[in-house]
């Protein structure tokens, strides 16, 4: 045990900027801004409209007809100023309709019919006016209610069929609905027929249990959801009164939905009303703004209410609003520029910069300057090689005056075995290479070795993926088969393959239509059918298997229809694959086709996240229409480049690392501290567990020893996660339990802090007889300043500042001369302090 506490603290003064960044990093998830003040600021003070347009979401001039008493229509007013900038003035204008008695228009532009006729809706804003004509027909003669098209959307909108309520697998309190109304025939069965139809009373519709529960007439666990005077209530009541028929099963169905506007540049703390138009299979369109559901992907950036009104916060950036109606989804994307004055941008090195800077220009978000050499070297060595730079590398790099030394360093790191070690660590976890028994050791080590070798030799990514997905034979010859050991179920294979290599989370579609996606149960079954013929035979070593293609035409029983279906790529045509052809190869053919919309993009995005800590789409393996990229052009360009390079992983890394965008300083300027998605600066991150442990080993001069593997093996080089280490577990090493990189946690917590501050492991490393402190103390011939420089280079990868050097120099001098103290202990204090500094813990 140590008898004294170290008596100085890390050079926190220098790290002031970093501390701010770290706080930003920590705060990213909890910073939200209330919208109370935003209500009337929609038009902004500096916006001078020169024109206004009254829009209904359909083609300008197209007749607007409301049939029956229950159709509504959302109108919006879009103003433009002299520069062409557009603003939503829907709630800022005065609305009127003439003649009276045809329609009523609310202050938010929501039109409700009152009686047959044609009315002109007029809006005015100062001197500007706009009009639109609306016809109401059959007000007294509503067409019969269609269950699928009209009743189900009400249930969905009111969340009756949500996963937390009647939509969950077992229903709620004896009443079950299909999740999000994806199965209308089942819902009809449950509502109209189950329990001998006790839920409905066509003779006295308002006394129906179904309506009374919904409207609060009888106690309802979910509370009253539908007001008795609302349109929704009237639709349900009328449906019951009409005899609660299912309606024409052949009636037109929703084919797609469209949002108007689809994209918009908004200002901070402004509003945009959306219109959602559903297009039906018969070509008709219906305004479903009131029935659609809305959800934003970045609540800290914008909120959306149930009526489709989007309100931005005070932050700049991109936000998407997912809109869902029936089984269709669409996305509204808003860009909120900060509008800060843009100084001259750092030099653009390649297309990454051109596209990233274009985004910053759009946002008016000035980037931080390019980082200094020491910061770059540390950052790129960590990201590419999974380690800290050595003192010798730092000295050489800093001393090198060459203009291309950064590019050269990137190339050298990519060529090194350390690159293979670090990226093998990344891939080995998401390929779920883990081991629970001694028998599994050979396969796990072989799989890791194969991944490492493939990365080192820069095997094209399409071939690498084929080596996993289409792996056959024994682990020794084709180590990719270990994936089939760790992912033994056909469903899990399909889900993992989709998530890992396509960035598509298919899991939801196993039981029901994907709520945020276009994937149906049939898509799920067909995708899974690629794995239907995976056979297993005993292998040469205990517990090992030979994976092979079991002869037979690949089919899987569709969970919904109970019919066998043949394989199909997602969005691809169904394939009939001969009995003696392995469908897994056809799957890889489809995946790795340059035209595949997911494969290259998913990898480019995954690697972008590796280097920036945040994907262009985040999470990096959740690519879907409703989770759009923050910079689609950049992601497209990266994916295109990746395909054109022949799926060259090192080239992708090189492209990213060479960009100025990657080399920006993490220190925020006065505008970009809040930026977490436009990459206007580098976002600091805590070191991953393995790199951190290796860094502690390096900074203390006491390497960790893992049993079962030669001494000197660094944590980053461990072939799997079965090596016991409290340190690695505490700092979030992934265990290979899933295909998700989220298994690796980069959160900071108290146990981590305590472990570094005063655990036996850390303190023993610092005070070890063969450790750095002991060595420095024993070196009689080395000047103290050189020793201090060495400690700094080892820990924070830069020389100390003059101030730091003086502080530490004085401290060591003073402590060495104190009784009961010595140079070793003084150096231990310095090492301890640095190891516990944020600058050590973070890459920035």
């Amino acid at each position, binding site marked *: 045990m140590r008898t004294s506490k170290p008596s100085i603290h890390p050079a926190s003064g220098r790290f002031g900027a970093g501390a701010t960044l770290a706080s930003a990093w920590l705060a990213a998830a909890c910073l939200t801004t209330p919208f109370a003040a935003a209500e009337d600021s929609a038009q902004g003070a500096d916006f001078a409209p020169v024109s206004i347009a009254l829009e209904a979401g359909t083609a300008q001039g197209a007749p607007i007809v409301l049939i029956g008493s229950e159709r509504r229509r959302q109108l919006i007013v879009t103003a433009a100023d002299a520069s062409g900038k557009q603003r939503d003035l829907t709630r800022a204008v005065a609305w009127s309709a003439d003649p009276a008695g045809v329609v009523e228009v609310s202050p938010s532009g929501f039109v409700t019919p009152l009686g047959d006729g044609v009315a002109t809706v007029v809006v005015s804003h100062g001197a500007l006016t706009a009009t639109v004509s609306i016809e109401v027909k059959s007000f007294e003669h509503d067409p019969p209610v269609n269950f699928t098209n009209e009743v189900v959307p009400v249930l969905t909108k009111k969340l009756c069929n949500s996963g937390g309520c009647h939509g969950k697998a077992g229903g709620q309190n004896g009443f079950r609905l299909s999740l999000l109304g994806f199965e209308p025939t089942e819902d009809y069965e449950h509502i109209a027929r189950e329990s001998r139809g006790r839920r409905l009373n066509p003779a006295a519709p308002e006394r129906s249990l179904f309506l009374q529960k919904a409207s609060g007439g009888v106690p309802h666990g979910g509370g009253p959801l539908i007001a008795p005077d609302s349109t929704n209530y009237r639709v349900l009541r009328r449906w019951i009164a009409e005899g609660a028929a299912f309606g024409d099963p052949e009636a037109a169905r929703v084919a797609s939905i469209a949002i108007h506007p689809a994209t918009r540049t908004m200002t901070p703390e402004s509003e945009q009303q959306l219109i959602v138009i559903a297009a039906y299979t018969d070509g008709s369109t219906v305004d479903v703004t009131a029935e659609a559901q809305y959800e934003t992907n970045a609540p800290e950036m914008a909120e959306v209410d149930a009526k489709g009104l989007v309100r931005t916060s005070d932050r700049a950036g991109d936000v998407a609003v997912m809109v869902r109606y029936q089984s269709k989804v669409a996305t509204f994307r808003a860009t909120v520029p900060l509008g800060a004055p843009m100084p001259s941008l750092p030099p653009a090195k390649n297309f990454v910069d051109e596209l990233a800077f274009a985004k910053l220009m759009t946002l008016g978000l000035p980037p931080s300057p390019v980082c200094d050499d020491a910061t770059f070297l540390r950052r790129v060595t960590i990201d590419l090689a999974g380690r800290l730079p050595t003192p010798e590398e730092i000295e050489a790099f800093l001393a090198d005056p060459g203009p291309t030394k950064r590019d050269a360093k990137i190339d050298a790191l990519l060529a090194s075995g350390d690159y293979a070690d670090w990226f093998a660590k990344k891939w080995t976890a998401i390929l779920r290479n883990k081991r629970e028994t001694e028998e599994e050791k050979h396969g796990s080590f072989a799989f890791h070795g194969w991944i490492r070798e493939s990365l080192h030799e820069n095997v094209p990514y399409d071939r690498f993926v084929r080596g996993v997905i289409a792996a056959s034979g024994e682990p020794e010859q*084709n180590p990719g088969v270990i994936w089939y050991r760790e992912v033994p179920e056909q469903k899990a294979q399909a889900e993992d393959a989709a998530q890992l290599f396509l960035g598509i989370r298919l899991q939801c579609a196993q039981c029901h239509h994907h709520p945020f996606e276009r994937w149906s149960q049939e898509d799920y079954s067909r995708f899974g059918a690629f794995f239907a013929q995976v056979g297993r035979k005993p292998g040469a070593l*205990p517990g090992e298997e030979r994976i092979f293609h079991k002869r037979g035409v690949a089919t899987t029983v569709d969970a919904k229809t109970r019919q066998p279906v043949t394989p199909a790529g997602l969005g691809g045509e169904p394939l009939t694959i001969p009995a003696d052809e392995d469908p897994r190869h056809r799957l890889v053919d489809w995946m790795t086709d340059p035209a595949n919309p997911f494969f290259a993009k998913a990898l480019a995005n995954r690697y972008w996240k590796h280097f920036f800590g945040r994907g262009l789409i985040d999470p990096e393996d959740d690519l879907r229409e409703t989770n759009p990229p923050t910079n689609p052009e950049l992601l497209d360009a990266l994916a295109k480049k990746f395909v054109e390079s022949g799926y060259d992983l090192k080239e992708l890394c090189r492209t990213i690392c060479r960009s100025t965008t990657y080399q920006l300083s993490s220190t925020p300027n006065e505008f970009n501290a809040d930026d977490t998605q436009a990459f206007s600066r580098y976002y600091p991150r805590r070191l991953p567990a393995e790199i951190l442990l290796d860094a502690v080993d390096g900074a203390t001069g006491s390497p960790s020893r893992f049993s079962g*593997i030669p001494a000197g093996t660094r944590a980053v080089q461990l072939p799997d996660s079965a090596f016991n280490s409290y340190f690695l577990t505490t700092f979030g090493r992934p265990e290979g339990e899933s295909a998700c990189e989220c298994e690796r946690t980069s959160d900071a917590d108290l146990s981590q802090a305590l472990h570094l501050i005063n655990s036996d492991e850390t303190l023993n490393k610092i005070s070890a007889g063969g450790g750095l402190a002991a060595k420095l103390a024993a070196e009689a011939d080395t000047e103290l300043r050189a020793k201090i420089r060495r400690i700094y280079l080892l820990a924070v990868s830069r020389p100390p500042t003059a101030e730091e050097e003086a502080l530490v120099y004085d401290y060591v001098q003073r402590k060495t001369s104190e009784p009961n103290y010595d140079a070793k202990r003084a150096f231990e204090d310095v090492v301890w302090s640095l190891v516990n500094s944020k600058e050590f813990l973070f890459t920035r």
Partner: protein
Amino acid sequence: MIRFLRRLPVVAALSALLAASVCAQLPDPRLKSIFPAGGARGAEVEATISGTDLDDATTLVFTHSGIVAAPKTEPRRPFETEPQVVADKFMISIAGDVPPGLYEVRSLGRFGLSTPRSFAVGVLPETIEAGNPQSLETAMPISFGSVVNGRAGNEAYDYFRFPAKAGEKVSLRCEAARLDSPLIPRLELLDATGALLAVGQGEPQADATLDVQVPTDGDYVAKLFDAMYRGGDEFVYRLTVAALPRADSVFPPVATPGASARFEILGRELPGAAPVPGASESGLPLERTEAEIAAPAVAEVPDVSALGGLFEVSSADVAGFLHRIETPAGPSEPFLLGYATAPIVQEIEAGESSDAAQPVEAPCEIVGTLPTARDRDRFTFRAKAGERFAVEALSQRLGQPTDLEMVIEQLVAGPDGATTREIAAADDVDRAFGNPPFDRQARDPALLFVADGDGEYRVSVRDLAGGSNPDPRRTYALAIRPPAPDFRLVATVKSFAEAVATGEAGGATVLRKGGTAVVVVQVVRRDGFDGAVTLSATDLPAGVTTPPVIVGPARNLAMLVFSAAPDAAASQGPIRILGEATIAGASVRRSAVGAVVVREKDGRTTNAVTRLTASPMLSVIADEAPLSLEIAGEANVSASRAGKIWIPIRVIRRAGAKGAVDVGIDGAAKEIVATALSIPEGTTDARLELKLDAKAPLGAVPFVLTAKAQVAYSRNPEAAAVAAAKLAALDATIAKLTAENADPEILKAADEERKVLEKRSQDLAKAAEPKDVAVVAHSLPVTVTIAEAPFEATPTPPAQPIARGSQAEIVVDVARSFGFADAVELDAVIPADFAGIAIEKATLPPEATQAKLVVKAAADGSTGEVKLTLRASGTYDGTRLQIERPLALTIGPPAAATP
């Protein structure tokens, strides 16, 4: 986590069990490693052996007469009277004309010949791992163009530094599995600073290779380790760093016996070779050359020892020959070519996913390649109805990492063109010998089929284990030919120890005077051969006999028992095990190849590893067998199903045998069960009762009886006596030197030697103290011929046709045997499509031997011959048995109506 908890205790318990059972047994010499595991031809090598029961090893026995060994000796010191032999160390001389390749070595010592290990002979200069090259800094310097012999250390890397010039092709090759080493090698090539340049992964049954063209002049480092970072004395390897000729694959993989042909050879540094576009291995393209190879006219089984640990037991039925390519650098290592069994036809590559089929004419042997898992090769041939074919693939058994699957279809004309009708499919061939660990599956498919119509048939082959990257070295031969029934024999050497323990170990075959040893012989039946095989052994040492054993038609395994006379002299050497059978009227004779356990299953990371060996070896040692079991009566007996047999036996107890002897059987069908029998101490004679199940196999079933007992065994007391005598002599010398005031340095050395001798003497004396060991003695073979039932029924139908509308009698003679005297019930089964006859059941009373069945033919029934089944059933020893015999009746037209 659940999996972990579930498995852990099982492993622990198993290890404990193995430890307990293995520790107490009679010595059974096993050579576990020889280091170095090879040397250059023309060189003398100092080698160390390790293993179990290798006491007093006096020499090493090699399978090539040009390799000889002598014990290593230290020069005589002043206090010694003669040069001193260093235990377990030998000087091995390799003659300059020994062809490079693998040979086998066994140690010969107090307990006979050991199990074999492979020993390599090379052409390059060799060194032995020295220093402690476990870090980059301490890498051992070696020269380019040399072989280093090393042993992997546990949780350690080995580093070797060598110079190379820019642009030079460097091949690293680590041999391990072929040397019987458990090492699964991993190779890395580093530059002088330790930066990784290239990686080479090995395979459990193959070498690790790494071929690169080095970028610059300078030092390079080979880094070598085990795939699981294991290590130890047994983890021997040979690392070659050179640009040496190497043949990776030969195409075609088979040759026509007695013919000369051109072969394509893929490999490295071959004379006149050119790079193969697109085919790369570790970054460098493979090279291709051609060579004229003349195949010998006849060869039964290749000299398998030359392939070492790479030749699996599942390859035992491959007929072929070994060939070496002559290069300016000397002959290459040998590779195996199979014998074609039909005219060779070459596959025309149609593209990996093509459905096109290549027409061939049967009989033929198609030679082709399946470079990737996606490749499918299809061939069509014409056949006539009733034509019989054997279709057999040869690939994995020649050492390819393939796992072929084969499908045979008939092409059927349909309205939309030809469709296919699947006839048969084959994957792995499981011969199910029931003799683990020797009954490994062959991954090459084979099947027999009879064309059921004139027309076109299609054979498709594909590789279930193929990788995604094209590899032209994955070759196959596919024979489509008339069946040629034949057999091969594999002698799997079992030891006493194995019988005591798990039944899975295989050691040396060691005979003690008056004792027996068992060799299990597997009959590998080919092309549907199902005849009986008579096994015998020749070339036996004096005093050793082996009664022949017949392996019945439906069986493929028998135990051959070698018995040493009580006065047999110690000797050792190869023996020949022969099998004779009559095939298509001709007598066919085959001799057995041997199979040995290279390594036993460790329960965790390795299964038992077996391989073929040159020939079975036998030793007779000077010790007496402590226990023998004799059949005190007839060894060939008959019995009926459901019956019992009593075999009179006698146990012979010799030195140390004590307590009761438990008697049982081994090698019989599971339907033959021995009643537990324990012969108490002091008693020698008894009868062993065997019960036959109602489903016991019919015909001759050979097996042996076993006797198990505890023996107070004194291990190698002679060695203890010799050591004690040496110690006494040294004491006398020391006393003399002291008295003579000899040089204190000499006295000091003598004292130190005394300590060593004293320790050894004590250890040997302790080992020689009698300890209880479990001993199993085998009897000579017993053959029981099993009948279907203790009765036989012979029906005699009426001599004349039975007229419709009349009745007649069938006379059934019943022969009784095995003392069966009970009633027999008789009836007949009439085919459903023959109308109008009825036969009443009849019961034959006890003791009676003839009964009559009455046949009634209705007036309006069928006429003509009808084939019936006569059934006779009776109860024997409480078990109901039934036999069925054919019976034909003729029903004639109604008798002419009497006017």
